[in-house]
């Protein structure tokens, strides 16, 4: 099994799927000749030509809006937003059309497309290049939101997202793009959307994280586990529709839960998870669910960004506090 970075793994998935299915194409700003500013679409231009790796004009609504047309006409576009911070310009098309075309026409027209977008902080980038706003997309019915946490699941989820008959926002934690490698099987591996993954099993505490937060969380979990505590760690993988069953089953068992979220605290994904726990297994809780999150401030420029994203030490403290409650 080759050891790949997440960039390489997503690139592999795109290549595989474009080879397998000639309806699939990639499109966006600089995705063609340049291979994408993060090189995620590198080589696709050479292999599949410019008509299937489209360098578009600089217009996000234009990219999604035309992708919708392509999807309705039988193609399977994978559109890139260069950074999630520019994706707000296409929310009109997302909310107004991509997520509604199926219900609007009762299945007569559909939008099988993927919108890829690097998100999140930690790469010393300019303003607007570091936000984590999965909750924004998760609140719109009719669209799915997927966030991989490592190379292997990124590849398997990307294959699933492209094959999914509905529109998927695929948010790529750019902090994890090249920071580590994983074995990625040579043979095809596809993970189902809408299902969380239990990364570590345990009995004393449930920890939920996703995307770039998985790495510091694993670090914290392992540190605390060394002290003899049994921790269950859940990687969401799909944000919406949310797999509450896996979470609630775990909390029912452990009675304690910590959620680690990069985004600002309020109205984020962690809140929804707490609400699901409240709905289903409140009476099993032995401590308040803890949210370790970003803060309700405008994302700081990179000079002051680091400590705004929960670092491993803070997560570790949070785990201990919840265990000691």
């Amino acid at each position, binding site marked *: 099994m080759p050891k790949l970075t997440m960039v390489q793994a997503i690139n592999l998935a795109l290549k595989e799927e474009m080879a397998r299915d000639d309806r699939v*194409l990639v499109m966006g700003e600089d995705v063609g000749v340049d291979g994408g500013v993060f090189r995620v679409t590198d080589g696709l231009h050479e292999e599949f030509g410019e*008509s*299937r790796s489209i360098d*578009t*004009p600089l*217009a996000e*609504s*234009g990219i*999604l*809006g*035309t*992708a*919708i*047309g*392509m*999807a*309705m*006409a*039988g*193609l399977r*576009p994978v559109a890139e937003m260069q950074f999630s911070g520019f994706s707000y310009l296409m929310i*009109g*098309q997302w909310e*107004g*059309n991509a997520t509604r075309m*199926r*219900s*609007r*026409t*009762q*299945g*007569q*027209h*559909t939008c099988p497309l993927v919108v890829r977008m690097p998100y999140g902080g930690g790469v010393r980038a300019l303003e607007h290049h570091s936000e984590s706003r999965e909750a924004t997309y998760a609140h719109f*019915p*009719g669209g*799915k939101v997927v966030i991989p946490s490592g190379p292997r699941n990124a590849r398997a989820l990307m294959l699933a997202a492209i094959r*999914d*008959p*509905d529109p998927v926002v695929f948010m790529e934690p750019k902090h994890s793009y090249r920071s580590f490698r994983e074995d990625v099987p040579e043979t095809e591996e596809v993970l189902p959307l*809408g299902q969380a993954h239990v990364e570590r099993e345990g009995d004393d505490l449930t920890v939920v994280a996703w995307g770039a937060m998985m790495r510091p969380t694993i670090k914290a979990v392992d540190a605390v586990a060394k002290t003899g505590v049994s921790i269950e760690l859940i990687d969401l993988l799909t944000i919406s*529709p*949310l*797999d*509450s*069953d896996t979470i609630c089953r775990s909390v029912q068992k452990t009675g304690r839960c910590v959620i680690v979220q990069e985004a600002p605290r309020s109205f984020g994904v962690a809140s929804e998870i707490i609400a699901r726990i409240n709905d289903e297994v409140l009476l099993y809780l032995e401590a308040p669910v803890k949210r370790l999150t970003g803060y309700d401030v405008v994302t700081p420029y990179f000079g002051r960004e680091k400590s705004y994203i929960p670092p491993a030490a803070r997560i570790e403290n949070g785990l201990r506090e919840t265990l000691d409650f």
Partner: protein
Amino acid sequence: MPRKTLAEFKVEHLQVLDENGKLDKELEPDLADGDLLRLYRGMVRARELDQRMLKLQRQGRIGTFGPCTGQEAPSTAAALAMQDDDWFVGAFRELGGRLFRGEPLTNTLFYYNGWEEGNVLPKEVGRRMTPLAVVVGTQILHAAGIGYALKLKGEKAAAVTFCGDGATSEGDFHEGLNFAAVWQAPVVFISQNNQWAISIPREKQTRSETIAQKGIAYGVPCIQVDGNDALACYVAIKEALERAYRGEGPTLIEAVTYRLMMHTTADDPTKYRTKDQEDVWWQKEPLIRFQKYLSAKGLWDDAKEEALREELRAEVDTAVKEFEATAPWPLDRPFDHVFAETHPSIEKQHQEYLAALKEESDA
């Protein structure tokens, strides 16, 4: 080196049949009598349904709706000019074209009664026709994307899309024309300039002398046509379609027309425009001149007109009866089409909803 001229542009206007029914023989399209009659019939059919809907709305039998009266020509002419394999990507004032393409009359009734049923078309009709686009201008981009797909697949087909004059102010109009131009995609953009966007007159919408000239910004061939002249509409659209089929990219057509009724039945135009202006445009509306044209050709007379009107009114009657006799789908239908396959968390809400409904109806 003085200031030197880099590029020059002009915008043309096309009229074939003027408001008095006077024809420019040289420009007359070569249409079979049968096609001319179908075109006329298509426009009258839309008018009849439209006017009936106004009555139904006033009687509270359907909800708010946006009439198309006076704007029958551009979309009906387009539908005549198009092949089955072309995509019809409308906004919301293309009743003529939609019906001509085969949309059943009942769909419009369902739709404006607040039922998703109205968007489900017979397979052959719906295959290459998109549903009404309520968010102004967004459909323009879909057409550009569809055009790209047609080109990629090597189909000799085009996408024809419509928008209003107001819609040309939206960013999506700009992005749609630009993408289609860069891609040289087979798309015909038709802006029905009906002079108003709700209460905003054309002069407050944009300062350009014409809507047509907006094509210059994208290197897209453009023309202004008399949008109440079905022949001019047909000629320009046919030409644009041929260009698209030949791989020569998009065209922008401004069809100058007028919204003879209110914006929607929730709107009161007396707040912002004069009866005089409306009267002037009633003189220019598209049906009368076309009727004169057909008569001059010996294809039409009063008896035929009466017979046609009667037939169409009966058809509308039948549709209204069918509509009113139709039981709506069950209340929980919206749960069926969130995704292709439901998800446990949504199915759970579904069951909860059904239980709540039952409880409420039992109470």
